[in-house]
C-alpha cells in the first residue's frame, strides 16, 4: 500500500473544494429549512464530473483511480454544506451506477450509464422493506416471470432518491429459493406501469436528500431489465455495499476535517476566564481526540478503497471502515458542538446539522451493530 499523493490527486481535492464553495452552497440554509433538493446543484456536480469520477470515459466518465475519487469526495465533504446533496450523489454512484457497470449487459450500460453520468438521470437502489431492514435477505417483494416480463409486487421503504429517481435497482425474490439465494435485481424506470413513489419522508437529518417509499403494484419490468442472473441479488448487494462502505464515507472524512479546523480556530479566539478555551485541557483533549479519529478514519478509508481497487474482496475492512468513520463523525460532531457551546447548538452554525446528518451514517449501508456482527463472524464468533 502506498498512499503518497500525486500532484494531480491533490489538485483534484483542491478543485473539488473550490467548486463546492463556489457552486453548491448558495441558499443552503433555506433548502435545509424547506427540505428541498438542489437539482441545480445535482446538474452542476455532473458538469464537474462527480457522478462520473470512477466511471469509464467510454460512457462519459472521468475514469479516475479510486484514491483520486476518494480525495475529490473528501474535498466535497469538506466544503459543501449540503450533505443531503452529497448523500444523494453518493447513493446514485455506489448503488446504481457502479452495479450497472459491473453486472449490466452492454445494452444496459449503453442505455443508462451515459445519462446517469451526465446528470440527466437520478438513480438509487431499493432493498429495505417496511418489515425487513437489517435482515435484508428476508425481503418479500416478489418478481414473477410472465412471458418476457417480470411482474413485481411489494413495498420498499427509506429509499434514498426515490421521490426524484428516474431509475431504481429493485431487489425482489424470484423463484422459490430461500433467503439470499433467491434474490434478483431489476432496473425499474419510473414510468413503468405499476411503479409509484410516496411523498418524501421527514427524517431527522439529511433534510435536502429526498428519501421515500416505493410501491410496486403488478409493476411490469421487461426481462432485459434484469440486472445479472436470476439469484445474483446477494452478489450484487454485497458488491454494492462493499464499495459503498469503502468509499461513501470519504465525504464524512472531509466534513470532519472542516469541523476540526473550525474547532481549532474557535478554541484560539474564544476567551473565558481570561484565557483562550483551547488552553483548558478538557477542550484541547477533545480536539486532539478529534484529530486522532480523523487520522485513523483516513487510514482505514484508504486501505479499504485500495483493496477494492486491487479487485480484492474486503468484507472486514469495509465493515471496519464504515463502522469507524460513521461513529467518528457522530463523536466529532458532538464534540465540535460542545466546544462551540450555545453557538454550536444554534442553527446559525453547522454543527447541529452535522450531528443530525452524521447519525444517519450509523444506520444506512448496514447499521453499526451489523458491521460489528460481520467483524465478529470473521473472528469465528
Amino acid at each position, binding site marked *: 500500500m502506498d498512499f503518497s499523493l500525486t500532484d494531480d490527486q491533490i489538485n483534484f481535492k483542491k478543485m473539488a473544494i473550490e467548486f463546492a464553495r463556489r457552486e453548491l452552497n448558495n441558499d443552503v440554509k433555506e433548502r435545509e429549512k424547506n427540505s428541498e433538493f438542489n437539482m441545480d446543484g445535482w446538474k452542476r456536480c455532473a458538469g464537474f464530473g462527480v457522478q462520473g469520477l470512477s466511471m469509464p470515459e467510454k460512457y462519459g466518465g472521468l475514469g479516475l483511480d479510486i484514491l483520486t475519487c476518494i480525495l475529490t469526495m473528501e474535498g466535497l465533504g469538506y466544503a459543501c454544506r449540503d450533505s443531503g446533496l452529497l448523500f444523494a450523489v453518493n447513493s446514485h454512484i455506489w448503488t446504481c451506477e457502479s452495479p450497472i457497470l459491473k453486472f449490466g449487459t452492454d445494452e444496459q450500460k449503453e442505455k443508462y450509464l451515459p445519462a446517469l453520468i451526465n446528470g440527466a438521470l437520478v438513480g438509487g437502489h431499493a432493498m429495505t422493506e417496511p418489515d425487513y431492514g437489517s435482515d*435484508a*435477505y428476508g425481503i418479500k417483494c416478489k418478481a414473477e416471470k410472465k412471458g418476457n416480463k417480470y411482474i413485481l409486487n411489494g413495498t420498499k421503504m427509506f429509499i434514498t432518491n426515490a421521490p426524484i429517481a428516474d431509475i431504481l435497482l429493485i431487489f425482489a425474490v424470484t423463484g422459490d429459493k430461500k433467503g439470499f439465494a433467491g434474490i434478483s435485481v431489476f432496473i425499474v424506470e419510473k414510468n413503468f406501469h405499476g411503479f409509484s413513489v410516496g411523498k418524501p419522508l421527514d427524517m431527522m437529518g439529511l433534510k435536502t436528500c429526498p428519501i421515500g417509499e416505493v410501491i410496486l403494484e403488478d409493476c411490469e419490468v421487461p426481462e432485459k431489465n434484469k440486472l445479472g442472473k436470476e439469484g445474483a441479488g446477494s452478489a450484487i448487494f454485497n458488491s454494492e455495499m462493499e464499495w459503498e462502505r469503502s468509499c461513501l464515507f470519504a465525504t464524512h472524512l472531509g466534513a470532519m476535517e472542516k469541523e476540526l479546523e473550525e474547532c481549532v480556530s474557535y478554541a484560539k479566539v474564544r476567551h473565558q476566564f481570561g484565557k483562550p478555551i483551547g488552553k483548558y485541557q478538557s477542550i484541547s483533549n477533545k480536539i486532539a481526540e478529534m484529530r486522532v479519529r480523523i487520522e485513523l478514519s483516513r487510514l482505514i478509508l484508504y486501505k479499504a478503497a485500495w483493496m477494492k481497487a486491487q479487485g480484492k*474482496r474486503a*468484507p472486514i475492512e469495509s465493515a471496519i471502515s464504515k463502522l469507524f468513520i460513521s461513529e467518528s463523525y457522530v463523536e466529532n460532531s458532538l464534540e465540535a458542538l460542545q466546544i462551540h457551546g450555545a453557538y454550536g447548538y444554534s442553527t446559525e452554525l453547522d454543527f447541529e446539522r452535522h450531528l443530525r446528518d452524521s447519525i444517519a451514517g450509523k444506520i444506512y449501508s448496514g447499521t453499526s451493530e451489523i458491521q460489528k456482527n460481520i467483524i465478529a*463472524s470473521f473472528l*469465528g464468533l
Partner: protein
Amino acid sequence: MEDNKAIKEFIQSELIKDKSISANLKVTDNLIETGIIDSLGIQKLLAYLETTFSVQIADDELIPDNFQTIEAIFLFLKGKKREG
C-alpha cells in the same frame, strides 16, 4: 477429493453452530435451503476458498448453483482451476 474434505471441514467448523447437524453433514446436503450458508456465511466461505485454493471468485459467479452443496462448490472450483 481432498479439496472436498477440506471444504466440508471448513463448513462444519466455521459455518455450522449446531454440533449434531455438523456431524451428519453430507456433500449432497443443500447448504442454502438448510440455512447453513447465509448472507454472512457466504462471505466467510468466499474468503476461505480464495485463500486456500488460490482462486479469484468473481461477483457474478456468486449464484446459488455454484454454492448449493459441497459437491457443487467442489465442481465449481475444479472448473475454475481448469480455466486458470
